[in-house]
């Protein structure tokens, strides 16, 4: 009976674990939907900013030095990398499959690369999981953030972005790489390293303006824009705003990807628990049956012995 009881106890424990993983899956699904909605809502800002850049590029692109083509800005300047900043975005909690470990692996690769090239580094890590993993590997961290959960807010991200912009303008850093999990689709997220500073020039940002001829104003409905105070001045302000939007998107993508990863991991865990329960039930029933058979045989043996 001991074996059957042990199997039953184990089966009950697996059933309890399945309840927990199932609940976590449902919570992750709800959080994913909210995070996804936030991510979709924030796209409008980036799209409109890109459209504005496109319109500035199309309207003023052919004006020679005053146009976007001849535009220079400290954030666009590519400098030799003497000191770089790396921002790693992980989660505060585990039980989300390979989400954290993939980002940590990716960040170790880039940190190792910069170390090999003997470039000074400023390392910032967001998320308890990333902090503990990098601490375990002996990586020194200059900044640690644990305030970001499933709903990163722009007001929380803005001070971090401003600090990077100031450090870049002051020449304290020559580059900023962000290691995070990029959300492509619900079925595909990948840990990537994205260089946010120096910024890509407006022409190279994928806007149709870079393939247009200089006199492409007709392509935007024949509108010729006036600029207040000037196209250059607006571009000067748009570039930091564009950087902030991209940094915020990294945080939003990370939050969405974490919830998807947790959802998938918990779904797999629930299914696995189901399989385990089935197997344990079969083994328990066999053990119980063999025990009953054994007891019957014992009774029959006793009856036979009494007959003699």
């Amino acid at each position, binding site marked *: 009976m001991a074996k059957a009881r042990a199997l039953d106890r184990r089966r009950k424990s697996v059933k309890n674990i399945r309840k927990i993983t199932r609940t976590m899956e449902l919570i992750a699904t709800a959080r994913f939907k909210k995070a996804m909605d*936030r991510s979709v809502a*924030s796209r*409008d*800002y980036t799209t*409109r900013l890109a459209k*504005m850049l496109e319109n500035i590029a199309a309207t003023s692109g052919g004006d020679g030095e005053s146009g976007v083509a001849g535009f220079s800005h400290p954030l666009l300047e590519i400098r030799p990398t003497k000191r770089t900043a790396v921002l790693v975005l992980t989660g505060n909690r585990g039980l989300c499959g390979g989400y954290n470990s993939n980002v940590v692996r990716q960040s170790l690769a880039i940190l190792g690369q910069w170390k090999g090239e003997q470039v000074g580094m400023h390392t910032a890590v967001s998320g308890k999981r990333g902090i503990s993993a990098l601490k375990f590997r002996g990586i020194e961290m200059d900044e640690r953030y644990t305030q970001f959960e499933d709903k990163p807010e722009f007001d929380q991200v803005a001070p971090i972005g401003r600090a990077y912009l100031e450090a870049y303008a*002051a020449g304290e850093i020559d580059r900023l790489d962000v290691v995070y999990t990029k959300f492509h689709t619900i079925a595909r997220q990948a840990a990537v390293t994205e260089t946010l500073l120096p910024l890509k020039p407006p022409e190279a940002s994928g806007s149709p303006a870079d393939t247009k001829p200089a006199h492409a104003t007709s392509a935007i409905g024949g509108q010729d824009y006036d600029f207040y*105070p000037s196209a250059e001045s607006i571009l000067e*302000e748009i570039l930091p705003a564009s950087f902030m939007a991209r940094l915020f998107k990294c945080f939003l993508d990370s939050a969405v990807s974490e919830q998807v990863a947790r959802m998938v991991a918990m779904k797999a865990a629930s299914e696995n628990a189901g399989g385990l329960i089935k197997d344990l039930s079969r083994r328990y029933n066999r053990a119980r049956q063999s025990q009953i058979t054994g007891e019957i045989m014992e009774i029959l043996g006793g009856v036979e012995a009494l007959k003699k």
Partner: protein
Amino acid sequence: MAETKNPTNANSPTTGKGVRCVITTPEATVLDTQAQFVSLPLFDGQRGIGRGHAPFIGRLGAGEVRITGERGGAADAVRRSFVEGGFVEVGQDTVTIITQRSVPGEKFDATSARADLEKIRSVPARGDDAIESRMRSEEAARSLVRAAERRN
């Protein structure tokens, strides 16, 4: 702070649908409405936009966006919203405001705005960049206080 209007396209009963006004922040599009007239805080003063305004892209300062004659409301009703810098694109009877911070009029709070201003003023700034940044924040906070007091 002169109010500028396009005289040929002023807010009149013959202007039809008016203009579409969209306010977008990094977190979401907070407002998308059709109105007769929109007044914006450009970097150098307030500017009014009516139907048929010439297309332009401008830099915004900190101040109040006033939207008059929204569809579905009274013709002289004004919706207020505070924006802290950003950009505006006017074209095809659409006013698109892209800003990092927008506070709707119903959430104006003079007490907390004054507290924020005091907080900004109490932090010392060293170096040109820090001083410039503090001046910007202070100006924005002062504009919010003004907007909130005007509402009260």
